[in-house]
């Protein structure tokens, strides 16, 4: 650039070069040499850097070397839930299974929670609580395929009274998430009660490790709401299920998984037992205000639903589910679905609810 300008200043001289011209020429040669050296250093440096990056052994700083192709593969970090789950300590003096009948949902929930030791036993001031309703389908709540929003509201209020600092509501529905939350009334319930709703957006999922699980030892998990959470409550409707026969509080954790869930049906009982292992909740609420007694788990007709007027609260989701199976789905004579036995074999709960301490109350 600058050379051009200098060259253009004078017209080329005619005849032999003057000393001034020779001086000009010498200076130009100097400049050329300098430029050559600069460029040589630059090119050499670039080559050396490229060589370092590509040839330096893998452990060395800035090395990009990947001799066998293994280093380049994506590696996911595997998250872990707390080793003991979100369980609160035993309290021998209170019941294990709290059952409340009636029609005032808020009072029923309080009575059922009181029966198992009161909300103070489970939630302390400052807790970050995840509540997992079942919002699998885009149905009005009256069709019984999803958690009753009134139960969710009562639960959020109860948890807030106990001093929880943050309450999160999360589920990964089968149908379009926004529609499911809106149409089931869960969104309005969460918003009106001041809980934070988590939608299952792709960035919310992380790989979760569940040591000892048969199938889901590593599986994409709805991690977002669990970041920093220390209490987990499941609140699930009671539903007939075409394959595993009944979908209640244990099967409810299905909605925390992502990935290829449709493979689960190849061993649904093993999966539900894995779910019980994966998530040890603070407590679960079996919402039997409505009972979807047939055509489950989707339902779709009011004639598939009957009122149950019951809420069951327990730390032990198997006992709560077994109670629901016998007393609310009214399948007393039938053998329990196999997942109860599989989960019980891993000591994840008591599938014979008659063996646990039960406290039953009727609320107006």
């Amino acid at each position: 650039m600058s050379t051009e300008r200098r060259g253009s200043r004078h017209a080329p001289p005619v005849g032999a070069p003057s000393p001034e011209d020779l001086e000009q020429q010498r200076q130009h040669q100097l400049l050329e040499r300098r430029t050559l050296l600069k460029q040589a250093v630059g090119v050499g440096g670039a080559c050396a850097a490229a060589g370092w990056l590509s040839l330096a052994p893998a452990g060395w700083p800035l090395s990009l070397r990947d001799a066998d192709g293994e280093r380049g593969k994506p590696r996911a970090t595997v998250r872990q839930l707390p080793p003991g789950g979100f369980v609160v300590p035993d309290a021998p003096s209170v019941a294990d299974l709290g059952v409340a009948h009636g029609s005032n949902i808020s009072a029923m929930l309080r009575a059922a929670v009181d029966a198992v030791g009161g909300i103070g036993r489970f939630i302390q001031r400052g807790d970050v609580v995840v509540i997992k309703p079942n919002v699998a389908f885009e149905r009005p709540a009256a069709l019984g395929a999803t958690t009753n929003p009134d139960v969710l509201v009562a639960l959020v209020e109860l948890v807030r009274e106990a001093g929880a600092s943050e309450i999160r509501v999360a589920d990964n529905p089968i149908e379009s998430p926004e529609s499911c939350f809106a149409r089931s009334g869960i969104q309005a319930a969460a918003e009106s009660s001041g809980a934070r709703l988590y939608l299952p957006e792709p960035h919310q999922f992380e790989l979760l490790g569940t040591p000892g699980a048969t199938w889901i030892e590593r599986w994409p998990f709805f991690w977002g709401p669990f970041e920093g959470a220390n209490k987990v409550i499941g609140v699930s409707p009671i539903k007939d299920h075409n394959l595993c026969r009944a979908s209640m509080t244990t099967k409810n954790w299905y909605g925390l998984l992502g990935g290829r869930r449709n493979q689960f049906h190849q061993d649904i009982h093993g999966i539900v037992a894995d779910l019980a292992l994966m998530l040890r909740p603070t407590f679960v609420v079996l919402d039997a205000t409505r009972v979807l007694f047939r055509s489950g788990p989707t339902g779709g007709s009011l004639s598939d639903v009957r009122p149950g007027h019951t809420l069951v609260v327990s730390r032990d989701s198997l006992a709560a589910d077994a109670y629901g199976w016998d007393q609310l789905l009214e399948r007393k004579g039938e053998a329990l679905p196999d997942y109860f036995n599989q989960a019980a074999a891993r000591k994840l709960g008591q599938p014979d609810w008659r063996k646990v301490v039960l406290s039953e109350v009727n609320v107006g």
Partner: protein
Amino acid sequence: MKRLPVIQSVPLAIRAATQTNRDGTPWFARVFRITSWRIVSQAVFFGLFMFLLWVTWFSRLEGYPASLFLELDPLVTFATALSTHTVYRWLWRALWILIPTLLLGRVFCGWMCPYGTLHQFMGWLFNVRRNKDNIGVNAYRPIFQLKYYILTVMLVLSAFGALQIGLLDPICLLTRSVVTAIKPAFDAALPASLAGFAASPGAPEPRVFAGAWFIGFLLIGLVGLNLVIPRFFCRVLCPLGAFLGVLSRFALVRIDRDLTRCTDCNLCMRHCEGASDPQEALRKSECFVCFNCIDDCPEDALAFRLAPVPVHERILGSIKEGTASLFGRRVISKLPSTVIGAPDVPRRRWVFAGLAGLLAYPFLRFSKAVNAKAYSAKAIRPPGSVAEPEFLERCIKCDQCINVCPTNVLQPSTLAEGGLEGLWTPVMDFRTGFCQLNCTLCSEVCPTGAIQKIDLARKLGKEPHAEVGPIRLGTAFFDRGRCLPWAMETPCVVCEEVCPTSPKAIGAYEVEVTRWDGKKALLKQPYMRPELCIGCGICEHECPVADQPAVYVTAIGESRSKDRSLLLGGPDVQKVKG
């Protein structure tokens, strides 16, 4: 390094802006001159257009007129009126564009059209030409006639019931491009912390669209052509522009050149958007009414005024000899003619275009994909769609239904499903989504009634539509050779679980099978009750044999046309009691 001039100090800029003009008018007469208002208008309409596409989503739609721009589009209204002999729902809104066009010319192109705004903005931003070249590229070219041929072919096709305006109508084209190409890219670029602003918030997976690459590249290509010829699309291809151009010959108000002031300097061509020759005889059919020529005229010779009658016959004397005068003032310009009303298309070429349209119809219609004889099994239309021939009369390929669909099941048809005639019309792909039972959003946003406005009771076949029964999109079939319980003695029946009808259309036989290793296993093997199946496709979507599902829906049995019914008794077969 040169300082970037935009980084001037604010007080300096304010002082420069508020200087009194050389002609003594106050500063705001310059800052708020008409071209500034045009830019405001373009920005507002472009923003409104994008906003309406952004709210076309389950949780945002509320009462927004999501397809407003498509309804305002006079070409959509006119062409569907030609093909259906009716004006659907909100399409009368096109009058709001039609009336100003008849009075003022193509104001839509210069002031409102979001696609035009995009082209103008990109052309401005990436314009590196010198003024001499600017004047050159803004000269009128005969290739600009092409849009009138395109319009003619499309209108002739419309009259036969093959509505193809959507291929190139700018509103349809931009809507489609935004929906299938821009929105997914926008969502991919959006950081997780701003997920609430995503175009498809709450979607569990990124949305994918068939042939999005082609629609996207087409957008880049058409916008890129601005670098070759400014507003290439608007000047050369746009059928809506052509339609408005034909109408604008009746405009009473236009850019008028004062022959007694014009020095024939041609500076008015420098930013002329429409290449409408304001320096000579204004081509009314090409003028976008952008007013840039007024800004660029150093002689104040141009004005936008009521000028229904040309003045050249009033010129006295000879221009050649320099003795011409007009109303007593000396004529300076050497070019006496000031206006050309009609598009520059010779009559024989109109006829040629018409003939081309006449021939194009059989070429399109007697291709296999859209013909009733051999329609594609995968051309599954959204719920509420009218029967296929009427559908093709109405669908403008705007893809608003695809935009609003919460599950991503709606896809722009490729040549495989719809042929060229059905290209980019909505079809359902149950591998990308499924038709959600209680959702009727696509029928709400469809501007032309290809998907008729239905309520939920109609879709589900509840009172008062119980007689007719639910809308069926097709029928699901089992491929027992791929179905896990049937072919591989592996438990599954996800399909039964998710089947949304009550009672379920998918049931299962409980059978005890002896496996290859001699062990006995109790299995549930699914079966289909076609009289209950509504073709929603959630079974296909959830089937774990994901790449080629073992249960799949095809169009047969769809309730929108008797010709395509499957079971004896037509689409309204008696519902069985559960």
